[in-house]
């Protein structure tokens, strides 16, 4: 059972929900995995307090030009659709942050002047969370533009999950490629949103991604009670279940800012999340999206 927690934009309480869900589950330590795939701004560790035991680099392959063999023919620059390699004056320059590691330049160089080298763009970390379950996260180096390879490797590193395992994924915010990669393969998608016009807009965008995978979706409204009804009306009309409502509440805002999960603040959330999980497992809640 893989549950991805996502939201159309950052700062909606996605990590609060994901970490609270993981901490609520009474699953044997080794059978529960938490993956923080929000590699640009991972902060689930503040809530789960893992003890990192393993770390490894994430590298992508980028071209390296042997200027001595290079004839400055320009073929590499011509084939690179990302303009990540260019012939400038008397040398060929590679721009690692633009490179998508497609390998075309190496393949097309008539002189065999290009080889590939490893460029480290981030790290993966793994170790037990404070509650004992297995915790994984990817962290992208500051200034790196490409999160996708890190999310992909993070999922590979965590391994194929089997039926008995429960995996909670904190997906990157938005609807970009890294988010799609994180959500891909999930059995259930929890979308966290706020009851505002912006929240509704972002929810609709996230649903477009859900539609690609036709996975069941449930909505969680955070900061409920702001007075805007648009999200409720939209969900009612679209047949989407609103699974949990987290009220706009000062203790919650202050608690989560200090790294406390919902169940640390209000213990009743433990039962709420356990029920949510039970129902998800039985497909009792959530809506196929798009609806058949």
């Amino acid at each position: 059972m893989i549950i991805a927690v996502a939201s159309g934009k950052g700062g909606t309480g996605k990590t609060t929900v994901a970490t609270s869900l993981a901490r609520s589950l009474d699953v044997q330590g080794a059978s529960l995995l938490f993956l923080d795939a929000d590699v640009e701004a991972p902060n689930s560790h503040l809530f789960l307090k893992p003890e990192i035991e393993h770390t490894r680099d994430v590298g992508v392959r980028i071209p390296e030009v042997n200027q001595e063999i290079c004839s400055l023919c320009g073929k590499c620059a011509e084939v690179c659709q990302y303009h990540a390699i260019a012939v400038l004056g008397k040398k060929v320059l590679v721009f690692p942050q633009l490179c998508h590691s497609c390998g075309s330049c190496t393949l097309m160089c008539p002189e065999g002047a290009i080889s590939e080298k490893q460029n480290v763009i981030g790290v993966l970390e793994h170790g037990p969370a404070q509650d004992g379950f297995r915790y994984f996260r990817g962290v992208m180096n500051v200034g790196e533009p490409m999160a996708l390879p890190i999310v992909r490797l993070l999922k590979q590193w965590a391994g194929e999950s089997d039926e008995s395992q429960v995996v909670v994924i904190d997906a990157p915010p938005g609807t970009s490629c890294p988010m799609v990669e994180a959500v891909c393969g999930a059995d259930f998608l929890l979308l966290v949103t706020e009851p505002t016009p912006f929240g509704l807009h972002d929810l609709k965008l996230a649903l477009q991604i859900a539609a690609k995978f036709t996975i069941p979706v449930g909505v969680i409204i955070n900061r409920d009670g702001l007075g805007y009804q648009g999200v409720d009306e939209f969900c009612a009309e679209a047949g989407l279940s609103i699974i949990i409502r987290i009220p706009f509440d000062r203790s919650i805002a202050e608690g989560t800012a200090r790294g406390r999960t919902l169940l640390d603040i209000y213990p009743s959330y433990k039962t709420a999340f356990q029920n949510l999980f039970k129902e998800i497992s039985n497909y009792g809640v959530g809506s196929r999206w798009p609806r058949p």
Partner: protein
Amino acid sequence: MKIIISAAAESIDAEVDQRFGRSANLILVDTESLDWESFRNPGMAASGGAGVKAAQFVAGLDPDAVISGDFGPNAYEALLAADISMYIFNERVNTIRSVVKEFKKGDLIAVSSPTSAGKHGS
């Protein structure tokens, strides 16, 4: 001296374009004769790496200097490698002609580092 200036349209009397990689046009001017030639900026339509694409094009024209409102890190590195000096507009410039005038007076500032953080992948 041959200089290249980022422009919003195809003439020496066109307004300047503050962007380098994504300016509409690049105008090559001979500072003595004021002969000029306008080129479409191939970086403008690039989905990514506009600065590099524009810089590579500029390097092919082999000017002594290039003048624009902003050079991101990739464009900066590329032009530096091609040994082309970079200058930025001052507040007195509006048309390409006025840029040439300011440049000849020595009133434009040479750039020795990227002038913006740039937009990765865009």
